[in-house]
């Protein structure tokens, strides 16, 4: 059963995931209306607390909150007193004293959302913490696959790229495994976590083998600046061996779809012509992100224990 916070896909069970997907399906309909707004969270306040820069995820949460009529406040370090050496926890507790109904947290260090959740009255939603998890990204990926394929059970999902540093990979690994898909990881050996097999997934050092019979190819972003020369010889080398183009995609199933959490490095993880059209569903992922985050806010925002106390009172 879902807890008060959404910190990790690892914490959820199959029924939770299905409930979020069903809710997102209904929220998607709201997004297709002329008036894309329902009064559900009217009078509720959601704080986007982003210690790490992010335009896409933050905007997606902002639109999701606004479509549910919540008041959404964005708070990021550059515009805050963090520069004055206020601790992360102090900042969070200060915001909490303003009685938000949910706090969406992103931080470059794994575990920070959990620390904040332990200290706050408001429910906390993890929007990505270090190399730990990025639950709403995995949920929107699940949702996209479910929409495309009509099921998740029994599918083969190949996750390609920097698995080691990727919270997206980790969350997706849990999400797809929990719903009965076979998850494969493909990366240069330096970018595969040790003992990954213990998580029940298979890892491959060759893209071709990993793609064999795959229904879904999920590419991860390569952080070029940080990794080139360390984990692989060069960007060109990576693009040649693990970059996806139409020719390599032929190893996957005929109706395989291609996904990427964005922002994409064109010509690195994915060929130019493949990024913009079927079978790539990258923009569908973005669209579904709003519906999924509406579902998450609907299910989590304003369900704090403080709420229960108010009700008794």
């Amino acid at each position, binding site marked *: 059963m879902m807890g008060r916070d959404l910190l990790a896909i690892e914490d959820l069970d199959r029924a939770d995931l299905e*409930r979020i997907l*069903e*809710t997102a399906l*209904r*929220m998607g*309909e*709201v997004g297709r*209306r*002329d*008036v894309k*707004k*329902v*009064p*559900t969270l009217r*009078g509720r306040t959601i704080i986007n607390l982003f210690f790490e820069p992010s335009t896409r995820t933050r905007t997606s949460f902002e639109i999701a909150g606004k479509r*549910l009529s919540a008041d959404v406040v964005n708070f990021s370090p550059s515009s805050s007193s963090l520069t004055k050496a206020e601790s992360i926890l102090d900042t969070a507790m200060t915001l909490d004293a303003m009685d938000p109904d949910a706090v969406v947290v992103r931080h470059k260090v794994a575990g920070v959302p959990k620390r904040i959740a332990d200290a706050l009255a408001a429910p906390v939603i993890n929007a990505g913490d270090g190399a730990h998890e990025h639950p709403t990204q995995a949920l929107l990926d699940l949702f996209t696959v479910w929409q495309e394929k009509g099921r998740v059970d029994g599918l083969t999902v190949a996750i390609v790229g920097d698995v080691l540093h990727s919270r997206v990979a980790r969350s997706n690994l849990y999400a797809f495994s929990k719903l009965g898909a076979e998850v494969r990881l493909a990366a240069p050996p330096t970018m595969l976590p040790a003992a990954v097999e213990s998580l029940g997934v298979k890892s491959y050092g060759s893209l071709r083998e990993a793609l064999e019979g795959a229904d879904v190819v999920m590419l991860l972003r390569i952080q070029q600046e940080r990794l080139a020369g360390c984990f692989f010889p060069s960007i060109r080398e990576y693009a040649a061996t693990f970059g996806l183009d139409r020719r390599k995609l032929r190893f996957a199933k005929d109706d395989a779809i291609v996904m990427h959490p964005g922002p994409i490095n064109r010509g690195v993880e994915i060929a130019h012509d493949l990024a913009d059209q079927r079978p790539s569903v990258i923009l569908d992922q973005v669209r579904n992100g709003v519906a999924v985050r509406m579902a998450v806010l*609907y*299910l989590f925002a*304003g*369900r704090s224990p403080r*709420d*229960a106390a108010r*009700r008794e009172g």
Partner: protein
Amino acid sequence: MSAVEPGSAGSGGGGSRSTGPATRSDGVERVVLDDVAIRRALVRIAHELVERNESLDDLYLVAIPNGGVPLARQIAANLASIAGVEVPVGILDTTLYRDDLVSSGERPPLRRTEMPSAVDGRTVVLVDDVVSTGRTIRAAMDALMDFGRPRAVQVVGLVDRGHRELPIRIDYVGKNLPTQRSERIELRGLEGGLDGPLEVVVRRQPAEGEGAE
């Protein structure tokens, strides 16, 4: 208020059924409208719709799920055979417009919304199975206004059980059914679709009723 939850819609089988661990099985439940009575009421309501609306061309039946859906479809079929008109049927979930979400800890599941036709300028007929406080109809009207500007809104309630808390009038009533607040009214047989037998039952809640609205 729709008292019908997907899970509680029963597995059919008619007649004598024991519901879970109910302590008093005698007189706990009685059928107030059987399938024949429901169908008869829906034919009458279709006739009333024809009688009270000058033009049937701009009529739009909008069902409140789950219970309203088979009822609206049946009314549309009746209108087709009585007056030869094809009236569109939409489905409008009211959950996101409920006024009690703030106080409820668990969020209720969302249901389908499918509005195949535009609402503007049409006479929209909301169809619900059980009307009581009027709060669901209020929510439905708010939701409807987000889809456009209907020329008029009318309401069909298969069962009107009273206990109104808002100034909402039901224009077409299948059956007025004075009830205790502690009783629960359910439309059963929804999984059967259009052809499956429907029935409306009244259930007395054992004291401290669980799952009461």
